[in-house]
């Protein structure tokens, strides 16, 4: 029957736009980049596929410091955003009352300005002789040589700031949808507030923690912009390495190989994390 057949096809037809999008903008580029990562050559001689796996070993040996640094910074940033946004979102979700949405808006408001502008403003605010440090140095609270910019601290702080909403929003969603009567029930069953938090609230918010961590960690590890703008000597992260190999050196195979190694490192990290949290929480 024609209608029968159409009914069977319907779900596939509905997914078609999404699948087509993924194929064109994700699968094909990924396959191309993967193939490039095994190529050899130069821009003017052209690149040929030779199965040159040394692209991986050589770049790993060359950039291991930057790769490890990136993973570490990503981890620190994820933990910091979690520690900062959890109490904030907890308060809004449970104590926000009718003004919840206003509080949420207030937190998100700064993020309506472009990312680049916000980060560039940091350079103005934290300039060595700028409005903040300059003033503190003038009244003798900071030594003359003190600087914030061009340090690893500035990179971590800037990224924590920029990635905060990616952690905060999933947390808020998972906390907000929690039924507050569960806490009443816990109290009825003689649990202390601390116990109620640890046994009820925290486990129920884990899907938010998980989602927020992924949304923060993954882009943070590969972010080239914050370290470029706020970092200095010896703060190079892997995103900057990829950028330089691709755009300055035109060494596409090396850049592609690093990208794939980064992806592998992140996948392993995420896999371990999912195992630790339990797969059930992963899907919420």
């Amino acid at each position, binding site marked *: 029957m024609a209608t029968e057949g159409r009914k069977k096809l319907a779900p596939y037809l509905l997914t078609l736009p999404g699948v087509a999008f993924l194929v064109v903008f994700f699968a094909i580029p990924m396959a191309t980049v993967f193939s490039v990562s095994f190529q050899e050559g130069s821009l003017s001689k052209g690149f040929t596929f030779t199965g040159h796996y040394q692209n991986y070993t050589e770049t790993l040996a060359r950039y291991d410091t930057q790769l490890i640094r990136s993973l570490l910074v990503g981890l620190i940033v994820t933990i910091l955003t979690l520690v900062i946004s959890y109490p904030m979102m907890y308060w809004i979700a449970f104590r926000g009352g009718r003004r919840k949405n206003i509080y949420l808006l207030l937190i998100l408001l700064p993020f309506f300005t472009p990312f680049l502008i916000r980060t560039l403003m940091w350079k103005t605010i934290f300039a060595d002789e700028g409005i903040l440090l300059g003033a503190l140095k003038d009244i003798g609270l900071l030594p003359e040589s003190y600087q914030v910019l061009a340090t690893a601290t500035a990179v971590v702080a800037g990224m924590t700031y920029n990635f905060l909403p990616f952690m905060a929003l999933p947390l808020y969603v998972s906390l907000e949808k929690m039924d507050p009567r569960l806490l009443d029930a816990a109290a009825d069953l003689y649990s202390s507030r601390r116990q109620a938090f640890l046994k009820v609230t925290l486990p129920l918010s884990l899907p938010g923690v998980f989602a927020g961590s992924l949304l923060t960690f993954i882009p943070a590890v590969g972010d080239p912009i914050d370290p470029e703008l706020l970092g200095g000597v010896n703060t190079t992260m892997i995103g900057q390495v990829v950028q*330089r190999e691709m755009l300055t050196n035109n060494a596409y195979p090396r850049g592609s190989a690093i990208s794939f190694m980064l992806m592998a490192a992140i996948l392993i990290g995420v896999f371990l994390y999912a195992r630790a949290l339990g797969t059930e929480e992963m899907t919420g």
Partner: protein
Amino acid sequence: MDRNREIARLLAEQPRRGMTRRDLLRRVGLSAGAASLTAVLVACGIKKEDTADSGEKNTLTTDEEVGNLNFANWPLYIDRVQGRRPTLDDFTKETGITVNYKEVIDDNESFFGTIQEPLSGGQPIEWDMIVVTDWMIAKMVRLGYLEELDPSLIPNFTANAGQIYKDPSYDPGNKHSVPWQSGITGIAYNPELTGRDLTSFDDLFDPAFEGKVGMFKEMRDTFSLTLLSMGIEPLDATEDDVVAAQTKLIQQRDDGIVRNYYGNEYADALVRGDIWATIAWSGDVFQLQFDKPELQFIVPDTGGILWVDNMAIPEGAAAPIDAMKFMDFVYDPEIAAQITAWVNYICPVPAAQEILASAEDNYTRTVAESPLVFPTPEMEANLHSYKDLDEEEEQLWNDLFGEIIQG
């Protein structure tokens, strides 16, 4: 001279506009990658059997005028008044050739990435004339990507170009290129912060300036100045020399003297006082001095770099004769002065200085008097060129340099 007054008036209103050329790019450089990413994908998996043989004698696609010129240039690199480009308008008025002018070049490497594919396959590209830096000219000549020029069509160049622009090391005999504008890579510093005058490149290694020195992310600039400071002419630099230069620069970094390796943002850091002394480009410092007159620019006593952006005709271009007519046109001192009054880089036509000096407004006279736009003979005598690196050398230099700036 009415037009010149108009230009000057606009310049006086926005004195820092000219500086944005390189600036612009590198700031959007992070997203400008999009263009070259296309090049990446195009380059993928495509095998080139051989590159064009540069020994072959070029033959132009036509020896007739076509009437339209497709001209690719860098942003903010030609005079612009109230939405018009006077130099282009004047050219059309005089020759009847229309100009399709596009500001599509953001940096040498990524622009090369976009034109390399067709050129290597012997296909023409959409541009009849491009502007790229000297070392890129050398590279493209080596690959056979540029047409030979006919000097008889560019008499103004022979008559009016400054001596240092003729027969340059990167393109002997100006066979394939003539300069558009140029600039000096030297040192800028703020004497109020350094507390003394700087004269040499080694001043950037003074422990007294710990954490207050800016170096460049540009491999060619940083290495060339360092090599010069070690008494090595960049053109003759060997692998050992570059390794030695790398050692010197790593030492400087590990001693904590370098605050950061900068792209264009060095100018802001210098103005803010985050850095006291830095490698710098003359054109930027000329602009910055309007806001911060105390800033100084020097050619280090061990030598500075003269970089030259050149006009050239890509192989197989549709309108080579029109392009050469344009090259000739901008070597008319009046026209050269008109461009320089706006872009404020170093003008390849010395006679333009007198024309600008006779202008009635202060701004244009400042341009004429500045050694950063018209360098003194002493400065010129101490300027050197980048080495033309072949591909292997370039990768080696880039890798060595990466180890310094991407610690």
